[in-house]
């Protein structure tokens, strides 16, 4: 007998009072999305627990997928049995033997939610401890640091047995905290900012600025690949690709070189804000980290932020580069970000950008040009793609593999 379901524990969710149902529905939908390639899987959820019923699908692959889903505190592969003591014993022994390797120690943790069960917690621990010790020669108890923790959960409807407790990604289910726009450059930071925002339940649409021929098809592909990595976590992400060449050329012409970067950022923010308004988002997320580059000094942020009062979320603001890279490696975006193609931020970098731009000065420089029609045009011509975990593969070549 192998495990037939995965028991999911909610963690922080359970404290959300009246919103709980909304949160659990979101989580259920996200898990469904992430596991949609496992056709036979069924998901059942109630206020306390959620269950992924495997129905013959590959359990270990499903476990790998679940590890990335926000809103899960921990989960365990489990077997459901009825409350017949003999059946429970049989199931516990086979499950345990599957997991057991020579020399392992164990303990038993019982949760007796059904207070009417014939045995009390101590009696259950005793009964099953004795059962294992009798049947597995050489097995030893270690209650402090066991190799295997056999968990017995006695609930109203049935008994659940599990041997493993796998840590989930924590956080809140993606989409439970509203929608915002992620400015996605293709660098290392912005995908990490997106990831951390999702962790707290934000739903995202990504905005990328594309300047052909200054930036190549490959830099666009890079952004699509990065978005796909994020979509692996949330199920799908809308990506807006903004044509930006014309505006960048205009800036080069109209604004003094050392202020061109500040203006570029201001215009990117205005365009993103416009796309946000059209798509009913409530905030903008960036990958800025204080002091990392010229555009990320406090003075720069002050001058750039001037164009909008939409909340700008900067999840990385206090992080060091090394901390950011650690997360990027964990979520598998580091290598993609490191592909060496020009992006919109690197092409037009002035030789000595102002690290302390003045808000009034940049306003003054921009006052000679009416950027509004250009902004509208860019927003209008924005290409919108829905990215799902399969996008990159579907898009081409499927028949070759």
């Amino acid at each position, binding site marked *: 007998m192998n495990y037939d379901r995965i028991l999911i524990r909610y963690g922080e969710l359970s404290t959300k009072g009246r919103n709980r149902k909304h949160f659990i529905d979101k989580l259920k939908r996200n898990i469904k999305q992430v596991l949609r390639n496992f056709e036979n899987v069924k998901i059942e959820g109630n206020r306390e627990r959620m269950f992924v019923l495997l129905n013959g699908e590959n359990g270990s692959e499903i476990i790998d997928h679940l590890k990335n889903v926000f809103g899960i505190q921990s989960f365990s592969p489990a077997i459901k049995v009825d409350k017949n003591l003999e059946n429970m014993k049989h199931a516990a022994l086979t499950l345990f033997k599957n997991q057991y390797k020579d020399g392992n120690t164990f303990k038993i943790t019982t949760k007796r939610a059904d207070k009417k069960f014939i045995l009390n917690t101590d009696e259950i621990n005793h009964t099953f401890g004795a059962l294992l010790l009798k049947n597995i020669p050489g097995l030893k108890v270690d209650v402090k640091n066991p190799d295997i923790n056999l968990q017995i959960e006695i609930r109203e409807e049935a008994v659940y047995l599990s041997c493993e407790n796998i840590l989930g990604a924590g956080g809140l289910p993606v989409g439970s905290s509203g929608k915002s726009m992620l400015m996605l450059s293709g660098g290392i930071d912005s995908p990490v900012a997106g990831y951390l925002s999702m962790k707290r339940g934000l739903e995202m649409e990504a905005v990328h600025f594309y300047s052909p021929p200054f930036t190549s098809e490959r830099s666009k*592909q890079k952004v699509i690949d990065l978005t796909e990595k994020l979509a692996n976590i949330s199920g799908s992400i809308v990506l807006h690709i903004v044509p930006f060449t014309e505006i960048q050329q205009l800036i080069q012409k109209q604004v003094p070189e050392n202020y061109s970067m500040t203006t570029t950022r201001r215009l990117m923010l205005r365009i993103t804000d416009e796309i946000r308004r059209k798509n009913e988002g409530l905030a903008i997320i960036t990958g800025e980290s204080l002091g990392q580059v010229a555009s990320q000094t406090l003075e720069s942020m002050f001058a750039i932020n001037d164009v909008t009062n939409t909340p700008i979320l900067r999840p990385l603001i206090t992080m060091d580069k090394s901390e950011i890279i650690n997360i990027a490696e964990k979520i598998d975006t580091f290598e993609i970000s490191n592909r060496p193609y020009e992006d919109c931020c690197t092409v037009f970098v002035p030789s000595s950008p102002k690290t302390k731009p003045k808000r009034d000065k940049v306003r003054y420089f921009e006052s000679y040009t009416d950027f509004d029609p250009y902004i509208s045009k860019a927003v209008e011509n924005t290409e919108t793609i829905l990215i799902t975990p399969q996008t990159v593969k579907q898009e*081409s070549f499927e028949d*070759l*593999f």
Partner: protein
Amino acid sequence: MIYFDNSSTTKPYQEVMDSFCKVSLEYFGNPSSLHSMGAKSEKLLFQAREQMARLLKVHTNEILFTSGGTESNNIAIKGTALMHRGRGRHLITTEIEHPSVRESMEQLKELGFSITYIPVDHNGIINVNDIADAITDETILVSVMHVNNEIGSIQAIKAIGQLLKKYSKVLFHVDHVQGIGKVPLSISECFVDLCTISGHKFHGLKGTGALFIRNGVKISSLISGGGQEWKLRSGTENVAGMVAMARALRLTFQQQEKHLDKMIKIKDCLRRELEMIQGVTIHTPLNHSAPHILNFSIKGFKAEVFVHALEEKEMFVSTTSACSSKKQKASSTLLAIGVPEDEAMSAIRISLSYENTLEEAAQFIEAVKETVIRLREVMK
């Protein structure tokens, strides 16, 4: 035709050929070129790498594409020796390795490295303790094949990996060329640092292969140039070949899932029937051997004669391994497991693919019996 020589090479799957042709003709751009044709080739190569990694359950950046098993083995062994010669100059391997391992070791010996060859028992299996005993402060690499190409014996890779885990200076290389698609190997659970596979052994094309290099493991490159494959193996990438190999591996794993039981049945049947023929000795061990390889001798016949006699009936088998069968020397693997030289000279290897059937096995047995009788008459 009955093709029982799949350890020498396999017939490429039709789908594999289709992929190869399509990529060669339609996506011939150089992955290093800046334009969109180059980008497409690069993407194909990336996708091939990703698929290989997924199938082998490793990371994408741990797959190095090469021209095949021989090259992968050479890079693994000499690359390690070059990179870590400052750490030590001692390498350990077994007595029954493929020539691409053995000869790499011998070449290093000429350069001043010392090599320990671990002996095998009569089943062709090494004792893990022998490796533990052979390790010194100077040891930098242990190279052990998973499945032997001549007799099919399987080494306890997991136990060796667990042993070597305790020695942080020693890298662990596994030649998995014969095992892949036939005998499962979990690269991560066995603590393998370097692992060789070859495309044409699983219905891919000749000239394609890969070397798994665990993240964090550093080895030197042997081929310098434009810096492809993370500067480890320069030269324009064989995109079509790698796409074809990725497809072949996926299809092979599918076949393995569906038909492994059938393959085991065929091998058991061959073994049972051959054993009943007078004068036949089976060299492949009963336990701990791969499902597709069966090695046996028929007393009194030169192997070569027998191969040609079967060939007349459109049945194709091999004397020892393809790589050494032209040398007219007794197989060193067979000698290593204690087979007498005259018997070793008459050794025949059958190697199966998932395409082979029980009917073929029955026909083959009939043919062997006939041939034995016919040849005995001639030779009297």
